[in-house]
């Protein structure tokens, strides 16, 4: 069958854009979202922009015109984006649409976000990807509830480049004062949430005034058309920051063991030393893997999906983050965050949720609500009510059931933000605003909520210059169940089977075949006839169940004055440790 579709019939060379395809091979592509209160005309503004740019295939425009004719409605540019039958009937946008178009300067992905309160989650989905946003305000109705809420969400989502569009200037009599009043009011609100508008422009989108062409009816306006305003935004260059490569998986399809993931920031190079957190393992990049030889490379930068072969084989897993050793993420099980909630039921304090951060997952709870605000009025709400409702934002303290590698959002976006899953749905999101260093300062072991700090694998040396025993600098790893441990170091060597007794945390860590087998509270641990060491790696002279009972009793009563005596009675320094010589950073 041959349809009468004739491509050669439309070879007009002066088009602004190829339909639907914004970027050519090399030019930049800019992601832009249009937000604002319901009915203020976001879809109409965007529909007009796309129409003027010739960015829509003839079929799509014809279909909208046909439907308009059939239903006796005037042609509405918004319907070019509002594809769902329900959207056109009700005249609202339900879900975000993404379309592409091109100007002489560059390509755009434009995201039309819904403005209805009920669809805030869809607005967030659309806006979360954007590099810049335009807030659309109805000139007649002015700033409304969702205008402010969307502005607040933009600031939380980290969309810092914002423009203002005052639409429907025709309904406001093309009045300069109306435009200036609204732009001023909104600028003030944006500043309150930490944003500064880059540009403000008046338009009447239905007929296209000042959208892509200046309008005589807005002759008093000296600023840019909307199209010029778009082109005036600055492309934010990909994140050059610290190396962050969250692992998606470890593949073993053949003899190679490939750590797969996307470089979120920084660069990774062959031969360079890397640290894998929270495990804290250090190794080198042996190679970057690829299916086709022509894709093989020496280094990879932000946004690249890569496969990394490490020089040493460790037990690695999804959720860990590769960084440089001297520029590592924090490892912590608690942090403070700015959080927004969009769940159907409120977030309950101290209830377990699943938290997803980059590729890691952990059980989490909000331990404390520090501040609760209405996201539109910014008015404080009573923080002590123990829950966060839909469309509210809060400053909270979050506790995790296991430590994760993460960053402050201000330092690294991709590893400083997270979502919270309630039941089957992503119901909230947040950014890390401050993190306690608690776990990063000390190495140790964890199993679920159980923790044991310890220094059994730390290297100590006698510094000939300082005439002191010092701890050698190095990573402070955290070990989870199943993780292998470094049984032999320069200053220690442990057997393959032993128990680590951490008196200060009242915990026993079982090491079996060199792997972490689990953590048991001190009072529940039964002596198994295996060697025991304390949290510093000194042998604990326990040879029987009776010894174990006695040791526990005596250490439980320990006072600082009694410690040397207890140590002399129970500990043997030289069983597994020795003290090598060193000077400064040089250790023999």
């Amino acid at each position: 069958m041959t349809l009468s579709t004739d491509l050669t019939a439309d070879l007009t060379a002066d088009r602004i854009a190829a339909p639907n395809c914004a970027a050519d091979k090399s030019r930049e592509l800019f992601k832009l979202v249009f937000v604002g209160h319901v009915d203020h005309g976001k879809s109409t503004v965007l529909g007009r922009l796309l129409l003027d740019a010739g960015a829509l295939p003839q079929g799509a425009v014809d279909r909208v015109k046909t439907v308009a004719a059939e239903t006796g409605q005037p042609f509405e540019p918004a319907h070019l984006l509002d594809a769902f039958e329900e959207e056109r009937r009700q005249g609202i946008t339900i879900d975000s649409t993404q379309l592409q178009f091109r100007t002489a300067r560059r390509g755009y992905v434009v995201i039309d976000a819904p403005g209805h309160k009920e669809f805030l989650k869809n607005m967030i989905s659309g806006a979360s990807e954007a590099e810049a946003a335009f807030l659309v305000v109805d000139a007649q109705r002015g700033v409304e509830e969702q205008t402010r809420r969307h502005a607040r969400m933009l600031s939380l989502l980290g969309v810092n480049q914002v423009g203002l569009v005052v639409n429907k200037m025709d309904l406001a009599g093309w009045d300069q004062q109306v435009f200036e009043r609204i732009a001023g009011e909104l600028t003030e609100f944006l500043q309150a949430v930490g944003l500064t508008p880059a540009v403000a422009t008046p338009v009447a989108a239905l007929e296209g005034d000042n959208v892509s062409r200046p309008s005589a009816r807005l002759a008093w306006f000296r600023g840019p058309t909307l199209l010029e305003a778009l082109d005036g935004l600055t492309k934010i260059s990909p994140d050059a920051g610290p190396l962050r490569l969250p692992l998606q998986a470890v593949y073993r399809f053949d003899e190679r063991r490939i750590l797969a993931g996307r470089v979120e920031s920084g660069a990774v190079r062959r031969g360079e030393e890397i640290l894998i957190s929270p495990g804290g393992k250090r190794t080198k990049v042996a190679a970057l893997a690829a299916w086709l030889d022509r894709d093989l490379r020496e280094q990879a930068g932000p946004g690249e999906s890569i496969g990394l072969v490490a020089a040493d084989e460790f037990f690695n897993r999804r959720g860990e983050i590769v960084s440089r050793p001297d520029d590592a993420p924090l490892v912590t099980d608690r942090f403070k965050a700015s959080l927004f909630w969009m769940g159907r039921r409120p977030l309950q304090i101290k209830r377990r949720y699943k938290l997803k951060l980059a590729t890691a997952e952990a059980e989490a709870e909000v331990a404390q609500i520090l501040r609760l605000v209405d996201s539109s009025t910014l008015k404080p709400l009573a923080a002590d009510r123990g829950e966060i409702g839909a469309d509210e934002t809060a400053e909270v303290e979050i506790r995790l059931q296991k430590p994760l590698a993460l960053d402050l959002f201000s330092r690294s976006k991709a590893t400083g933000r997270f979502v919270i899953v309630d039941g089957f749905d992503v119901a909230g999101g947040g950014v890390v605003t401050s993190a306690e260093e608690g776990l990063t300062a000390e190495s140790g072991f964890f199993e679920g909520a159980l923790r044991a700090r310890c220094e059994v694998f730390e290297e100590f040396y006698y510094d000939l210059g300082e005439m002191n025993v010092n701890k050698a600098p190095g990573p402070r790893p955290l070990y989870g169940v199943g993780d292998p441990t470094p049984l032999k170091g320069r200053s220690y060597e442990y057997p393959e089977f032993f128990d680590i007794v951490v008196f200060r945390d009242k915990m026993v860590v079982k090491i079996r075949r060199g792997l972490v087998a689990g953590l048991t509270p001190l009072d529940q641990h039964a002596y198994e006839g295996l060697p025991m060491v304390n949290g510093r790696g000194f042998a604990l002279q326990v040879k029987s169940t009776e010894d174990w009972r006695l040791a526990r009793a005596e250490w439980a009563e320990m006072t600082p004055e009694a410690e040397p005596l207890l140590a002399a009675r129970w500990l043997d320094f030289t069983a597994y440790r020795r003290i090598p010589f060193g000077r400064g950073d040089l250790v023999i």
Partner: protein
Amino acid sequence: MNHLQALEAHSIFILREAYAKLGRLGLLWSIGKDSTVLLWLAKKAFFGRCPFPFIHVDTSYKIPEMIVWRDKIAAELGLELIVHQNVKALAEGMGPQQGRLVCCRALKTDALNEMTRERGFDGLIVGVRRDEEGSRSKERVFSERNREDEWDYANQPPELWGQFKTDFPQGHHIRVHPLLQWCELDIWRYIEREGMPLIDLYFARDGERYRSLGCAPCTGRIKSQARTIPEIIAELERTSVGERAGRAQDQEDAYAMQKLRRDGYM
């Protein structure tokens, strides 16, 4: 990174997320250019291995060359290929003469849903793109389908920061859309860059070529002299006709695709 590299990297990220988070996974390979790009990206994502089967929903009305090429490429690339037909509907004489949307529903949607259930798939990777038509422009990357394979398009879950829908009740499945942000020209420029295999129905013969591939009775050729990929790219850069203008089922009704896709159509 240039535009194509960025698209490739993002699609690979999505494929790996799907493989890491969804249990039983399959890739819908329609033999057309988009799902063949998907196949190529899967080879790249998994370093030459494809750790899941490729599924072809065969309506029996496909353009015959498609079947020949499918079997040749599957053998060459060592793909695990599943071909599924709605045998019952075909035995009862289903075809486009019964109405295009009725036929699409029976031989594509129902066949796909039947296969999904039979094999217990948790995830199906599909090569749809936002720029194809309206309802696809509103899709999520991970898009849930319920036990009846329906898409609750008016109530889609939030999707932000590369965190996809990976929690869902048993019996539901996820349609994974790694090519969502690609557009038609991106696909062609990528095929050109990669020098990857492609069925030759897209290239002009006797002044005509296919721009979009489907079933023989419902897919039209366009007038074209483009015999090579650069010529196709040059042609597409200058047209304002939609890609699916040659797909008859789309023209049946203003909301045809929305309705088909609500019930599980790809």
